[in-house]
């Protein structure tokens, strides 16, 4: 995995982790304005990071939520390796 790809993946992991943690917090504090604001930021960052990663390195989400077909309309990019448990560096 290239350094650029690793760095983009790291950026997405950081953004998504913030979103996960804030999501759980908002489930029990649904009116906390600071948390709502932070979630909106995290949400935006996840979208940006995911879009950039997917443009360069392929789909991240199945079932119609990512562009999984190649630009030549003949390839099923969802199967591109590596799978998450094979990424260890």
């Amino acid at each position, binding site marked *: 995995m290239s350094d650029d790809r690793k760095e983009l*993946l*790291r950026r*997405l*992991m950081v953004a*998504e*982790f913030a979103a*996960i*943690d804030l*999501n*759980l*917090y908002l*489930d*029990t*504090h*649904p009116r906390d304005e600071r948390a709502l604001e932070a979630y909106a930021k995290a949400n935006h960052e996840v979208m940006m990071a995911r879009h950039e990663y997917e443009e360069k390195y392929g*789909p*991240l*989400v*199945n*079932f119609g*939520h990512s562009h999984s077909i190649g630009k030549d309309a003949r390839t099923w990019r*969802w199967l591109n390796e590596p*799978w*998450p*448990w094979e*990424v*260890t*560096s």
Partner: protein
Amino acid sequence: MWLYEKKLEYPVRVCGPNPRLAKNIITQYGGPDGELAASLRYLTQRYTMPIPQAKGVLTDIGTEELAHMEIVAALVYNLLKDASIEEIKAAGLDGYYADHDKALYFVNAEGVPWTASYIQSKGDPVTDLHEDMAAEEKARSTYEWLINLSDDPDATDVLKFLREREVVHFQRFGETLMLVQEWKEGRKYF
């Protein structure tokens, strides 16, 4: 409906083959306080929760636990991947190897298969949330014992992340319990 995101919640790296450590960590895959039990417990209890906050917390934590199950699987897979037969025998994992090769299977550290009796679903939200808080503490303790046993600093880093999440989940379940109790009082008196 669930979607799969083709990435881990937290990066997994190991220093090298270590079947002894894999044998211990696998308990968080299929053991009594492991991630499969956690995920299925919350996702099945959510149907009878009375308030939206509780339905949300159980759905979201149950979903995050699936991501943790994947992280534990990635740890075990990579600790076993390049292990030799000699290393597997020396680690006492030869019995597991006889049944599963290096495949992932839901067992505890002693090879006992997962069972639904590890979890409960009582229909009483106060009872279920108490179980959930206890479950998070049991999982936190298990991660601490695994950290004590680990001789792989990269694996330890992942175990520490998972340990932290148990602490956060415990906190969220405690808040949910208070909200359910407030709801019950409101229903009684107003």
